[in-house]
């Protein structure tokens, strides 16, 4: 057993010899039992990172370790739901779950899988091809959860779901994490939707890691301030600043305690993420950088 669920060092992936890098210099460590939000704009490398962790892509450089071993060796303990929710369209839901049982001998949790399907009011005899996008997502999640994985990799799991199904399935995922200590990594564009469910953040931008760590720590490391225009913000790291009339508002990474008249407040997760996305040149904050600086 290991206390690290997912680790990467110098990880890079390039598609084709002349293609651009989808992911580069990626270093991260996700402790076991965390629920990690994987966030970033389109083309940031989120899906690539998840496919590398699932062992469906081979790295061009660097290495990736999941559950203490190579992705291919950990496959039986990893659940992966790709963005397009691949399922066999000609199978019925019941057949799909039977397939899950057959492919996961000895660790198939039929109760959980059936409960997830039943909560969506789906007819087990319905063929997968007759299902809507959201219903397919439910079946794909049932298949992944039935596997009772140690690590669950979900690529945009909530995108097709209506608000009720979203809340219900997020609750199911959290219950899984609470009961079995399952580590979950899920990507999404909607940060607000992840804020209450995730305790860890991995923000990718331009194929690189921009922010990584416990959400509480990342929020505590930043401050939103409102000061008179022209105030010198040094020596603090400025992620974003804007001057409106006589006021300067900024999102900072304080290097030392801030003056009390700077009216510092803790940013929300969404503010933190958006500020970093709007300012791709802002200094990254990841455990790897801290170690390098130490």
């Amino acid at each position, binding site marked *: 057993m290991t206390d690290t669920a997912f680790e990467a060092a110098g990880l890079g992936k390039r598609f084709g010899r002349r293609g651009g890098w989808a992911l580069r210099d990626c270093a991260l460590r996700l402790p076991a039992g965390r*629920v990690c939000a994987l966030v970033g704009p389109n083309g940031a490398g989120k899906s690539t990172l998840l496919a590398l962790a699932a062992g469906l892509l081979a790295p061009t450089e660097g290495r990736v370790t999941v559950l203490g071993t190579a992705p291919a060796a950990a496959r039986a303990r990893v659940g992966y739901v790709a963005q397009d929710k691949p399922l066999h369209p000609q199978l019925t839901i019941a057949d799909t779950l039977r397939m899950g049982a057959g492919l996961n001998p000895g660790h198939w949790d039929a109760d959980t899988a059936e409960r997830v399907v039943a909560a969506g009011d789906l007819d087990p005899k319905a063929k997968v091809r007759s299902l809507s996008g959201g219903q397919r997502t439910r079946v794909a999640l049932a298949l992944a959860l039935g596997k009772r994985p140690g690590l669950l990799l979900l690529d945009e799991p909530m995108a097709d779901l209506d608000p009720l199904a979203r809340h219900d399935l997020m609750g199911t995922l959290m219950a899984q994490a609470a009961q079995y200590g399952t580590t979950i990594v899920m990507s999404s564009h909607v940060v607000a939707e992840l804020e209450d469910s995730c305790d860890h953040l991995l923000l990718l931008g331009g194929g690189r890691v921009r922010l990584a760590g416990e959400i509480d720590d990342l929020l505590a490391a930043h401050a939103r301030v409102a000061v008179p225009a022209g105030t010198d913000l040094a020596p603090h790291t400025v992620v974003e600043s804007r001057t409106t009339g006589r006021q300067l508002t900024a999102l900072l990474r304080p290097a030392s305690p801030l003056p009390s008249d700077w009216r510092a407040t803790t940013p929300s997760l969404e503010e933190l993420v958006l500020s970093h996305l709007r300012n791709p040149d802002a200094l990254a904050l990841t455990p790897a950088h801290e170690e390098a600086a130490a």
Partner: protein
Amino acid sequence: MVEYRIDRHSGVATYVQLVQQTKQALRLGLLRPGDKLPTAREVVEATAINPNTVLKAYRELEREGLVEARRGLGTFVRRGLGSAPADSPLRTELEQWAARAREAGLDRDDVAALFTDVLDKHFQGDPS
């Protein structure tokens, strides 16, 4: 049993909302000594929040001596809070007062302002 309701837009940290709602239930006598709090699994299944948030809230309640975790059994209420159960005579009087305030044409904000003012006058300096 207490059922938690999370307000995502309140600006109050989620674990603090759990702590406050538990205390409110203790004050109103909806939770009494010996009662079991819902398990982390039950709370997160219903609210879709992170399990660690629930554990953090329960640790805080434990630190304040209000609940205790019993290994393998769950988290139990150790003591109640305050002396304002849901069915006390004081509540009945307050209910009657609120009804009269409404009849007199006060709206919710007027009543809240009045109540807060009186509260401040009588409990000035007391810990909240």
